[in-house]
Every structure is written in C-alpha cells, then in structure tokens.
C-alpha cells in the first residue's frame, strides 16, 4: 500500500467505531498506532475531504455551546466496503511479508 491508501485506511479505520471529528480522528490514529503515524495531524484533512467527495464518508457540522461548530465525519456503506477491502489487502500484505520473514504475524 502506498502513502495515500495507508492514510485512507487509517482514517476509515478510525471511523469504524462511530462518527468522529478531525481532532478525534487524529488522536485515535495516534493512540491506536502507538505514534506510528509520522505525518502532521492536518494531513488527515485532504484525505477526509477526498473521501467525502467520493461519498465514502458523510460530514455534518455540529454546533457546540460556547465553541465553534465542528465537522463530524461518519462512514457510509461504500466507506465500510472500502474499509473491508483495505483490511483484506492489509492482511494479505502482512501474511506475505511474514511468510518471507518467517516471524510472527501470519494471518
């Protein structure tokens, strides 16, 4: 997987458990990947906006009391399908890689 689809997979994966806004998506990716994501938090936004244009996620502005509104993203059915595709692709990649390395992680 290249950089673009890695970030796309991570963003879709972060939304797997429910709708989130940008900051929470970045935090979720950082927390779950144990800091493996080395790019700036703002790099999720180009991916999020593309996913929105491709209708893999839907976004909604949610007003907050005493704070600026925030844009919350949620997976669509197409987004779930794409996420499943990423999961399969990633498992195959890990399996192939582990077969060569001979270590743990064979899926």
């Amino acid at each position, binding site marked *: 997987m290249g950089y673009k689809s890695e970030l796309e997979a991570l963003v879709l994966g972060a939304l797997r458990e429910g709708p989130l*806004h940008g900051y929470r998506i970045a935090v979720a990716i950082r927390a779950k990947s144990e800091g493996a994501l080395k790019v*700036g938090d*703002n790099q999720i936004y180009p991916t999020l*906006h593309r996913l929105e244009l491709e209708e893999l996620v839907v976004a909604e502005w949610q007003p907050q009391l*005493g704070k600026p509104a*925030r844009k919350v993203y949620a997976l669509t059915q197409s987004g779930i399908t794409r996420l499943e595709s990423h999961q399969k692709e990633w498992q195959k990649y890990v399996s192939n890689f582990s077969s060569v390395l001979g270590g743990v992680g064979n899926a």
Partner: protein
Amino acid sequence: MYLTSHPSSGVSAMHDDFGGDAIVFYLASLKKELTVFGLSNERILAVLSESKMHLIEAMEVAAPKTTLEAERVLEQFGDAKLLAKNLAREYANTQKPKRSLWPLAIVPLTMISIRIPYLYFELHGGHSFVSFLLVGAGVALFMFGIRGRRPMIVEFGVLAIALTIVQTVWLSATAYPVSHTSRRDMTYVEFVGRSNVVSQVEDWNKAIVSQRGISDTVSAGKLLFQKTNVRHVVPNKFMAGSRYLLPEGIREVGLGVSPKKMNPSLMVGTWSEAVSQWNADPSHSVGASADQILESTPDSISYLSLSIAHLNDIRNKPMLAQVGLTLPWISTVTFSSCAIAAAAMNAGWLFWCLYEVGRRIYRRRTYHSGRQRAV
C-alpha cells in the same frame, strides 16, 4: 481560550493567551497558502473552520504555558503550506472528467488515417489533408494535455505495446513484409496484402518497364535537344500539345501523370527554351536534370527488382520469420508515433503546470494587496 467567533468568520478571533495567539497566527498563514493554491472561498472557509476547531481542542489538551509549547502543538498539527498543497491536489484529483483516457484514441485514429491514400488530396498551399490532420492531432493532444492536468507516460507506453501487438497480429495474418534497403543503408518494410501478391508483382514489373522507357526517352532527349541542333520535327513523346517537355516532365509522363495535371513549369513553349533547360546545370534545372534521371534509373530498377525478389523470398519463409521482420518495424513506427503523441500531450500538461506556478507566484505576491484576502 476559545476563539469565540463562528467558524465561517475565518480568522477574526483573538485571544490573549499563547494558544489563541498561535492559532490566529497559524490560521492567517493557512489562509494565505489556501488562497495561493487556488482553493475556492467556500473551501477555504471550511478548511479554516475545521483547522481552527482542531487546534482549539489540541491547545485545550496541551494547555501551553509558553510560546514554545504552543509552537509544539502547531508542529504536531503540521505545515500550513503542505496542507494547502495536498488539499489542492486532492480536489484536482477528484475532478474525474478531466482524467479521461479517451484522447489516447487520437493516436490509432491518426495512424489509420495516414495509411488511407484517398486522404492525401491537396487542401491548401500544396499541403495535403493528411498534413493538416497531423497538425490538428498534435494541437488536440496538446489541448487535452492542458485539460488532463497530469503527466501521461505509462498510458502511452501501454498504448504503444497494445497497438504493436494488434498490428503485428493483423499484418502477419493479412500481408507479407517486404524489406527494402536504401542507398543510405536505411532499411524499411513495406506490406503487400496476401491477396494482392500477383497484382503487386505485375505493378512492379510494369514500373520496371516504365523506368527503362523513361531512361531511353531521356537519353534520346539529350541527343535531340543539343545546342548544335536546329529546330526540326520533334517526336510526340517529347511534346505535351504544342509545348516541349523537360526531363522531369518526361519522367512524370512515363510514370503515368497526365500532362494536364502536371506542374506547368515542367514544359516550355519554345525550342530555344527547351534546349536551354535540357542543357542547364542540374542546380538550375526545373525538377531533376536529364543526367540525374539517367543516374537514378538503375537504382530505381534495382529497387523494384529487389522488391519482387524479397517478396518471393519471404513468402517461402515460415510465419515466425515473417513476424520477425514485421515486429521490429511495426514496433519502431508505433513507439515513435506514441512518443510524439506523448510529447504533444505532456507539453500541454507542462504548459498547465507553468501556468499554475505562475498563478501561485502572482497570488503570493499580490496577497497582501488586499484583493486576495477578501475571503
């Protein structure tokens, strides 16, 4: 520490702590970069609102006590220019209609067109329709390159391979490859349809007879149009009506061109002009001189004879040998055509890149004039 304005208001909020100041500074920088990269006002506002909310939450968690700590939060968020650049790229990439591959069809259509003899009629200023067709195809590819907004190299490579395979299969099934080697050791291949072998050999034999006839007539013409001769009755084969044919005119008549369709400069009206032209220096004669025609005739006859020999030879060789001759020639021609087409299309893309860079430079330089900031 909240920036109390509505998201759609952009960067108007101010706050007196480190986080608030840093956010305002960052959003101002981001707004400039988004403007420079040409995002629409609507998208700029949306990105600014999202970024602002993101930074507010990040600052809340980090609760910076110094400027340095606030800068670390911004560092974690990432570079404003990179965000603007990647957003601009994603929006450009999602404009799918501009990424269509159908302009590639221009290449095979043009390649087919230039093989249709009927299209070689004169259109304007001595140029054939095909010449205009090639220029038009180049211009079209250039325009599609501008519209496509991306480089296309691999696509043309795949197209060249596909066209090579299709043509090789097709020609191997329907034609014999006949190789020719010119005097300058350049080899090229002509394809003779399998169903046209007999008529093609007849045509070549007729052409050999014509070449010999031209040579004999020109030799006779050299003796006839000598300066020491006085005007006397001139055989019809040197005349086109009441005009005298020059050596190149003799050759054209020998090749089957009607004097009515011939360039008028290949015939003259008076005996003295005819003698003068027939004996003129080759660099001053109209068309090829008599000596040049006599010199080139053996080569022409040799070329035609070898064509017949090569055709007979290749017909008796196995299919693999025929493909071995077809494939290199077809691949060379096809890859060259695709390379030229790729150059035209990518020139369009390059033009668009330069235009975009120019626009970004202009927007960056004029940003502070106020016009670009009116978001």
